[in-house]
């Protein structure tokens, strides 16, 4: 069995984002970086499957970006991936989901993976497309938004989150792509011995030009902070007065007291 997990490095969401000089992405100065949260669940699920299947199985982690993405690759290796692929690309952030998916598919098509794991979406661009696109490009089956995963006898049983509290259970033949929702599992913390071990694992570097032959399909044309709604009315007074004011609003705006 060959498994692949795709991870993205994203800025910490607590950061303050400012559009960059091109006005289509954010400026990367003063940002702290981390692994995309959704991808952490994907790595954990892939590592669990790797442990379930034992030595006959190999788990590769793939990430695209400049040198700094080495950090997330190392984290995935320390969590339990066997080897890594770093697609070197200084302008990964400027690529649309179609190009990113083409890069991943371009690498994966030579490797005959059985299952590809990834997060449901990234925390920064959040397009939630890459997993589905990769599956389409490779002709794999695909299930998105996983909240449950089991694998036995070449068949994946995937529990998907649907709308309004519904869950769907689907069986998939491999090869397949699955995208993971938050809460699928509890991502482990890399232990110190595993961090040390990870340092000896192989990281293959591939320049992006070898894998990407596609032009973007969509272009970002502007990038700006959301319009702020004007601040509202501040209600004042003691508790009794406040309650009367809120009741007045409810009477005015709703049918609760009519």
């Amino acid at each position, binding site marked *: 069995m060959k498994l692949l997990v795709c991870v993205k490095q994203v*800025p910490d*969401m607590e950061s303050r*984002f400012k*559009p960059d*000089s091109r*006005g289509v992405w954010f400026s990367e100065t003063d940002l702290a970086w981390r692994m995309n949260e959704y991808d952490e669940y994907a790595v954990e699920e892939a590592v669990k499957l790797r442990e379930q299947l034992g030595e006959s199985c190999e788990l590769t982690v793939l990430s695209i970006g400049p040198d700094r993405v080495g950090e997330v690759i190392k984290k995935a290796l320390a969590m339990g991936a066997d080897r890594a692929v770093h697609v070197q690309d200084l302008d990964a952030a400027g690529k*649309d*989901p179609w190009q990113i998916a083409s890069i991943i598919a371009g690498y994966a098509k030579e490797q005959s993976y059985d299952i590809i794991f990834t997060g449901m979406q990234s925390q920064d*661009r*959040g*397009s*939630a*497309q890459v*997993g*589905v*696109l990769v599956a*389409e490009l490779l002709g794999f*089956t*695909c299930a*998105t*938004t996983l909240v449950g995963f089991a694998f036995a006898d070449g068949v994946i049983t995937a529990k998907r989150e*649907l*709308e*309004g*509290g*519904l*869950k769907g*259970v689907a*069986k*998939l*033949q491999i090869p397949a792509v699955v995208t993971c929702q938050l809460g699928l599992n509890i991502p482990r913390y890399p232990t110190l011995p595993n961090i040390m071990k990870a340092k000896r694992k192989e990281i293959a570097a591939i320049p992006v030009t070898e894998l990407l032959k596609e032009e973007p*399909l*969509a*272009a*970002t044309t*502007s*990038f*700006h*902070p*959301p*319009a*702020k*709604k004007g*601040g*509202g*009315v501040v*209600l004042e007074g003691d*508790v*009794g007065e*406040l*309650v*009367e*004011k*809120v*009741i007045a*609003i*409810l009477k005015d705006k*709703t049918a*609760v*007291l009519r």
Partner: protein
Amino acid sequence: MTEAKKTVKKPRGKASLMEGKCIACGARCQSVCPVNCVEMNDAGEPIIDQSTCIGCIKCVKICPAQAIEMYFTPEEQAILAELVGEAEAVTEDEESEARSLATRLAAYKGVWVFVEQTEGEAAKVSWELLGKGRELAGNLGVQLSAVVVGEGVEHLCIEAFEYGADQVYLVDAPVFKHYRTESYLKALCLLVQKYQPEIILMGATGLGRDLAGAVATEVKTGLTADCTGLSIDDKRNLMQTRPAFGGNIMATIMCDKFRPQMATVRPHVMPMSERQPGRVGTIIRESCPIREEDILVKVLEIISDRNKDHVDVAGAEFIVSGGRGMMGKENFAMLKELADELGGVVGASRSAVDAGWMPQERQVGQTGKTVRPKIYVACGISGAIQHLVGMQDSDVVIAINRDKDAPIFEVATYGIVGDLFQVIPALTNRLRELKAARGLK
């Protein structure tokens, strides 16, 4: 071309504010200026220092009110006119290319909305999209079509007409009973190739995200997920605006070289359009040659947890939400009482969910649900941007928080700086009194 002309530099002009157009949007021009030549006056309007301005036009681009223009002196204007004359020869080539692109794109006509259904029941987001689609189709002067795929789903066509569709493409066969990417993908691609729409809208639900991605790959076009704003530009392109970074930034995305333009929109982002009973249209039936045996994915069962005291936060009209300020799980009982009086439900911020005080399906925000109830009562929620993007479109937001600087007050219609442990029970009691009094009458 003479030597002298070559040395002429293209004048870049200086930014200048057009009188009376500034809407005091919050100093976007100032924040974007790379040379800090913009200062803000007390009215929130920019004062541009033209001696330092380098003419980068960033402020012009970012201004939401088009209140900033580039100013050229008469001499500069003369140089510009001359340069334009020179450039014309070069652009002719590009023009023919642009024309062929335009003809290619013009073959695609009409706005489509994919109607998502589970067991014959349409997802509300589809009707919301028909409302938006109506507007876009109106702007473009084309027809609005709905696409209905399933088994025994003809009743949805009638509903689609009532929500604004001019026509419905119906693909009805047993193989489409349950959603599966492969079968739905085939059906949709067939329709797209045959009828060539220019815009396809889908709900950004589990199903819609899945299907939209697959269709976009198959027909090789661009897709923008989770849009919050859709409009048409002067070249008939769809301008798709979506939040990135959990709502910290809005990005506008265009797919101007490929058709159809595809976008998904999260539920409750667009307002529901009014239903017009009795409105009719044309149904276009299509069959899709696909056999059950060809599909690898099998749906075993649909598990509903609706019966076990399930609460749909996303669909509620009144939401009383609690955050870290609730101090503990037991205090949510207080919110439940208020929600019951209002006929609403209890929601939660991410910190309350992470603390285990409320289940995950009650979470409102970027990773939870997007809601737009009539009344949203935020109790002890500071208002992290990830939370705000999930609820800021509520009709009325009432925020109760002890910290007067909490960001929640920036989106609140009414803010109460005070102790929610006093205000909430008092409010619940007062509501009960009033209801009881009304009952006696």
